[in-house]
């Protein structure tokens, strides 16, 4: 009897060992989960508005500065007898991209919040602050923005609604980002009600990243690219008479000008609507749709702050007239200035898109680098031989075509103009391009709402911006 009992106890003890292992696994899971949480998730929780510790943290740290790439101060906190004031020396010029932090947080103030309220000064400085009961200085965010370029862009487009955005094609660095109408972030709290209720102007909207417009003739870049892909031996030939009908829809060239005999290059330079509508007739629309999608239409952009997605809805079920208007940049297509800049950036960079970014690095208030961001490749979106051809065409636009007002003696500029018809008034004026055309350092997208002629507004703005940046 006793042996039997001990036998079954023995079996139970063996089973007990297995249960022991189960518990070791369970407890280990607890540890792993905890460590994983601290390493990966904990930091992000600090800036959650429901976290009561955030306020405490902000009380002991003086919010860091935001600087441009040359060290100009774009945002800083001034301590005045225990009260902190957030000051924006450049007032309106950076209102959307830097954002504000006194009325909720937007722009870089929101995105880089975690960095700005952390202090990485050395131990002695921390000790000193503890003893004198003063706030520790938060880390500074050094951006890729160029203050003189931004100020110039802001001046040029002042008085209009629209946006200007400039990117360095080889790295993806955002050099300037302006949206109009703008506001003075120093007075954000004071003017809040007025700003938030201004539906007519939407001054708080960042048009550069979130504004969506019909691309107008700037879309011809994509149409031309698709044509080149489908017709490797480009021997396009067309005689323009100023207008042509496509299944009942009449397409005019600008001012109904007759452009005469054209090849693809001259049709592009003239921004000839009838020529391109004709090209559209012969294109494989499915392939055109794929191309647009590859170029990030209908897709998320590799951009880490808020933006709107562009849309391209043409497909093989579209009618002839829809195709005709879409390939010249009208119809349902919508694109943001950011996206347009990314497209020309890609062309400028041999077809390779670099991920756009605004923060160059984070440094402690005494200059120690905490985090450095390096350029990252998104993907090769266009084959290099096509970008050469497109660049060639875009140089022609500025040399002999619709973009002559942008021409500079100092360097070659490549670009494309656009006048986007829209139901709200005059056409939006577009200019997209880059310079110097042979070794691009800056790519730009400009849209001026309801300005009418691109040549009169967007194009001269582009010329001045290129000259300011490249001198």
């Amino acid at each position, binding site marked *: 009897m006793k042996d039997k009992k001990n036998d079954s106890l023995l079996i139970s003890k063996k089973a*007990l060992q297995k249960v022991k292992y189960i518990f070791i696994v369970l407890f280990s899971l607890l540890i792993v*989960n905890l460590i994983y949480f601290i390493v990966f998730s904990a930091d992000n929780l*600090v800036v959650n508005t*429901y976290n009561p510790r955030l306020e405490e943290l902000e009380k002991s740290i003086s919010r860091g500065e935001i600087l441009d790439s040359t060290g100009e101060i774009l945002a800083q906190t001034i301590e005045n007898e225990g009260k902190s004031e957030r000051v924006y020396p450049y007032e309106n010029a950076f209102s959307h991209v830097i954002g504000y932090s006194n009325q909720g947080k937007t722009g870089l103030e929101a995105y880089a919040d975690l960095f700005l309220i952390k202090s990485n000064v050395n131990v002695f400085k921390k000790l000193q602050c503890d003893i004198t009961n003063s706030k520790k200085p938060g880390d500074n965010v050094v951006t890729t923005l160029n203050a003189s370029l931004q100020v110039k862009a802001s001046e040029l487009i002042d008085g209009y609604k629209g946006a200007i955005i400039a990117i360095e094609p080889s790295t993806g660095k955002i050099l300037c980002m302006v949206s109009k109408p703008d506001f003075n972030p120093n007075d954000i709290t004071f003017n809040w009600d007025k700003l938030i209720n201004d539906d007519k102007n939407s001054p708080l909207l960042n048009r550069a990243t979130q504004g969506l417009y019909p691309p107008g003739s700037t879309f011809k870049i994509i149409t031309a690219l698709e044509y080149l892909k489908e017709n490797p031996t480009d021997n396009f030939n067309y005689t323009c008479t100023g207008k042509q009908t496509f299944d009942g829809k009449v397409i005019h060239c600008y001012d109904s000008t007759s452009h005469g005999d054209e090849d693809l290059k001259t049709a592009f330079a003239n921004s000839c609507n009838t020529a391109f509508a004709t090209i559209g007739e012969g294109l494989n629309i499915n392939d055109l749709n794929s191309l647009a999608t590859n170029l990030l239409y209908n897709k998320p952009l590799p951009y880490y702050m808020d933006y709107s997605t562009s849309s391209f809805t043409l497909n093989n079920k579209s009618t002839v007239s829809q195709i005709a208007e879409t390939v010249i940049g009208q119809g349902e297509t919508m694109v943001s200035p950011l996206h347009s800049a990314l497209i020309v950036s890609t062309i400028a960079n041999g077809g390779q898109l670099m991920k756009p970014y605004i923060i160059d690095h984070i440094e402690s208030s005494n200059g120690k680098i905490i985090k450095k961001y390096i350029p990252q490749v998104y993907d090769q979106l266009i084959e290099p031989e096509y970008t050469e051809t497109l660049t060639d065409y875009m140089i022609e636009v500025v040399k002999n075509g619709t973009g002559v007002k942008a021409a500079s003696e100092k360097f070659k500029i490549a670009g494309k103009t656009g006048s986007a018809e829209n139901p709200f008034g005059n056409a939006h004026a577009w200019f997209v391009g880059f310079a110097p055309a042979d070794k691009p350092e800056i790519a730009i997208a400009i849209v001026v709402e309801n300005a009418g002629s691109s040549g009169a507004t967007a194009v001269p703005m582009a010329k001045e911006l290129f000259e300011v940046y490249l001198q």
Partner: protein
Amino acid sequence: MLSIFISVSRYIFILLGFYFLYSSIMLNKAMFEESHEKTVFYFNAQKLTVFLSHCLGFVILFVTQSNFLDLLILYVEEVLFFMLIWFVIDKIYYKTNLLIWNIVLFITQLGFVILTRLDFGVGKRQFYMALIGFFAALIIPIIIDKLNFVTKLYPLYLILSVGFLFLVNDTINGAKNWSTIGTFSFQPSEFVKILFILFIASLFRTGINKFRLLLSALLCGTLVIILVYQTDLGGALIFTFLYITLIYILTARPIIFFGGLGIGSLGAFIGYKLFAHVKVRVEAWANPWADIDKNGYQIAQSLFAIGAGGWLGSGLTKGMPSYIPVVLTDFIFSAISEELGNVFSVFLIGILIMLFLSSIKMTSYIEDRFMFIISIGVSIIIAFQQFLIIGGVTKLIPSTGVTLPFISYGGTSLIASCIMIGILQGAFYNLRKVHQEDEK
């Protein structure tokens, strides 16, 4: 200056936590190798660690709180309390599992410090409950040893377990499993856990047969259903897991374990579909951020606190643990993580693992089936409950409203846990004496 002191204290707490874990591993080894000198050394080293940690905690409270005299009196009372317990252990219980006593005292001390930091009144009440609890813990081992008839009383345990659950007549903090008699409130389910283990141990004392299995399954099922009805989901989970694991160990048939888990999972799934309050918990676990000011509030605030602690903690009294909901009971672990840091928390989990491992190891030396069952029963309940609550507050699993034994505030929980440790040491007490007789 104070800031610097508290900042430095973080490192000291971590060091003490590390040493206690290390010495636990060493003490465990020494005990089972029957190396007397080493056992004495590590046992005493741990006593010192407990006193140092307790002292550091209270010193910080002395300089940061305003009720110095009250704190001092409480501190002295607690020191005397620890000294008395160790005195009794040294004199009477030297042949039990020494490591388990020490670990329980270490974490009880941790509970005292954190609770007193959060609220002096709470800390004081916890101490008074500990007096009762540890008194029970110190007399029960002998009772288990001497009173043999206690092992045969399974019908009594059966009736008492069901009966106790029917004592429930009150809802506190949304939990419907309280019993209030006059001004005195307690949670019967805590004691039913003990009665249930006694029942199983007593029932299967002489072996397993189908009738006994059926009876035990019926009781377990009944208890679980009552608990679910009382919305004590944590309790239901513990009983289910305990029962499946116990029966698996007794029969050594894996199918019991997996089959039981299967049925349990099915039950949980049905519970999820049927009961709104189950669904709410699962949703809060899956994405607390989606409903951060209502369903997800508790777990979100818990994660904020744990995250704010980082590796080293904010320092005792430097964090904001009072913003954690239910921090005195369920979420006490989050307060520890916030102020003492997560390196310390990891060491704490390590110490709880040692508690379990040492207990299991000693259990494997038991030859009496009743003692064997009560021993594994207690070990599993404590370990599983610790897993549930730490897992719940760290969002590993949905939260289940159970307490962290010995650390969470609560007389019922503390006293019941002490009784369980008493029972455990009772099983071991019997064991070491057997060894002594064998040697003769």
